[in-house]
């Protein structure tokens, strides 16, 4: 009997976990299809009506796209995320190359120092970062949003591991073939760490797309708003927030991530397993 019970139990636990993760999301999506009144009347008592719009309306989406600059914010977010991914990959892989392939005094110390910055919570960095970035004249710019994060200690750590696993002989062979550091980096090392690069790229994309606090601090102007900030700030200070639009915005903001995840699922999990640390 115990044999039969075990998988059942497992299935039950998994189902519970799934519900816990899935319910809020379902709630967001279903609310985005309800009129403002319906959202509130369905909250309590919790029933299936909370999670399913009985007669769905597209009104929230219509007004979201008509009234707010969400498309512009989406574009901003995409630019920031893409730029952040590209620059993070470039910077971290070059740093990892230097730390694993070029002998210099104190390289270990440099690595440890970089990793130490990992230990500081973002909240503690916020004020000094703001001073530096706005001091550089980058407040209210997309560059200002991405620049503090492109030198990612997490990325360096991940890529350093990957680089160290590549046999040294490859590089020796390339040197005999006449390659210098740049050529070895581009033509021998990078093509052999595609999976770690992809993983880091995905984690960075996710981090960038979902970031809220820093963009809120550094880029207030509508021109430079990213999606998360735009959603939170729709509705002016004098108005009640339009919750339907908020939910619609949240849904729109999540869709690209879901698509990406479905496409490249394998690398997400690999990234988590490889680092043992959350990005």
């Amino acid at each position, binding site marked *: 009997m115990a044999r039969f019970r075990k998988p059942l139990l497992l299935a039950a636990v998994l189902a519970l976990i799934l519900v816990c993760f899935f319910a809020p999301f379902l709630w967001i999506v279903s609310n985005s299809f309800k009129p403002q009144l319906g959202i509130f009347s369905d909250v309590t008592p919790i029933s299936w009506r909370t999670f399913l719009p009985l007669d769905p309306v597209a009104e929230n989406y219509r007004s979201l796209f008509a009234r707010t600059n969400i498309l512009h914010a989406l574009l901003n977010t995409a630019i920031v995320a893409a730029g952040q991914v590209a620059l993070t990959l470039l910077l971290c892989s070059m740093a990892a190359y230097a730390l694993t392939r070029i002998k210099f005094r104190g390289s270990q110390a440099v690595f440890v120092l970089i990793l130490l910055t990992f230990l500081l919570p973002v909240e503690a960095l916020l004020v000094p970062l703001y001073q530096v970035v706005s001091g550089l004249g980058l407040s209210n710019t997309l560059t200002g949003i991405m620049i503090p994060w492109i030198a990612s200690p997490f990325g360096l750590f991940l890529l350093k591991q990957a680089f160290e696993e590549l*046999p040294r*002989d*490859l590089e*020796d*062979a*390339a*040197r*005999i*073939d*006449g*390659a210098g550091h740049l*050529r070895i980096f581009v*033509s*021998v090392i990078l*093509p*052999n760490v595609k999976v770690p690069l992809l993983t880091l790229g995905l984690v960075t994309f996710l981090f960038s797309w979902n970031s809220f606090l820093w963009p809120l601090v550094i880029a207030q102007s509508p021109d430079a708003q990213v999606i998360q900030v735009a959603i939170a700030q729709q509705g002016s200070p004098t108005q009640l927030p339009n919750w339907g639009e908020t939910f619609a915005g949240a849904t729109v903001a999540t869709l690209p991530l879901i698509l990406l995840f479905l496409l490249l699922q394998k690398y997400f999990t690999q990234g988590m397993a490889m680092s043992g640390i959350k990005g």
Partner: protein
Amino acid sequence: MAQVSLAGIGKTYEGAGANTIAGLDLDVQDGEFLVLVGPSGCGKSTTLRMIAGLEEPTAGEIRIGGRRVDGLEPRERGIAMVFQNYALYPHMTVAQNMSFGLRLARLPRAEIRRRVEGAAETLGLSGHLDRHPKALSGGQRQRVAMGRAIVREPEVFLFDEPLSNLDAQLRGQMRAEIRRIHDRLSATTIYVTHDQVEAMTLADRVVVLKDGRIEQQGSPQELYDRPATRFVAGFLGSPQMNFLAATVRNGALDLGGGAVLPLPPGRPLPEGRRLDAGIRPEAFAAAAPEDAAFHATATMVEHLGATSLVHFSHAGQDCAALMEPARAPRAGQPVHLSADPARLSLFDADSGRAV
């Protein structure tokens, strides 16, 4: 003309206490096949990598073809190197692997093609040019690594234990192939191995390294027949030479355990001198009990096919003798052996030098 000469080469790795290589002098003639052998950690790879330019020596000069090369980049030295684990670029096809260096050197495409196809032809890789290394067998990967060296048309080939990842049969095949290629291209070859069969079969000259110094050099047969030290004697030859503690007594060699052999002809030695006597396993011969010098019990017998290796213990030393299978005893049976005094090697018991 690609003579390679090392003069007073030294290497101390940062952080390592002792010198890895100390004051190494070595001249390799143009077209010579030189084999560097020695136990693990004796500095063979280090020496080779210094010649290649992958490591800088901390002392001395390296010349290739009369030109001073230390300080030059590997590509400027006219060398090619084959690594133990092949070091093929995993993301490139066989053809791309072989042509990488040529493409970097911006050779004309037609020339690159000519060379790659020529090398593939020589190595039997013509059908595999579009494959990636992971789709090749160990032997084929080995060939690609050689091909990558050949297309560079180097003046000096450097090999670092290129065959140690292959099985015995392939190793024999590739050994012959390497020698054939060497003879055909008449390039200078420096070959590192710790396999003494490779050393014996491939080399024009063998250099035995120990602790970063040259212990002895010479033709394979010379080293085999007249080892200069006990270390070389023990290192070359398989199965290994037997060593017995010996004393000169009454003008003869007392090997302990009642075994007495006449002194080797033409080598008078003072009474009471303590020596190590080296007897190759094949220098033993089965003898009638009354003629034999060694009387023992076989502890183990290994049948190798053409011969049998009989293990026995003499005066507390484990020994082994090669015998014809028909005459070999079984384990536990008595063995009676004689040894040809002319084939004895004698070493000073303290210094290990040949006397």
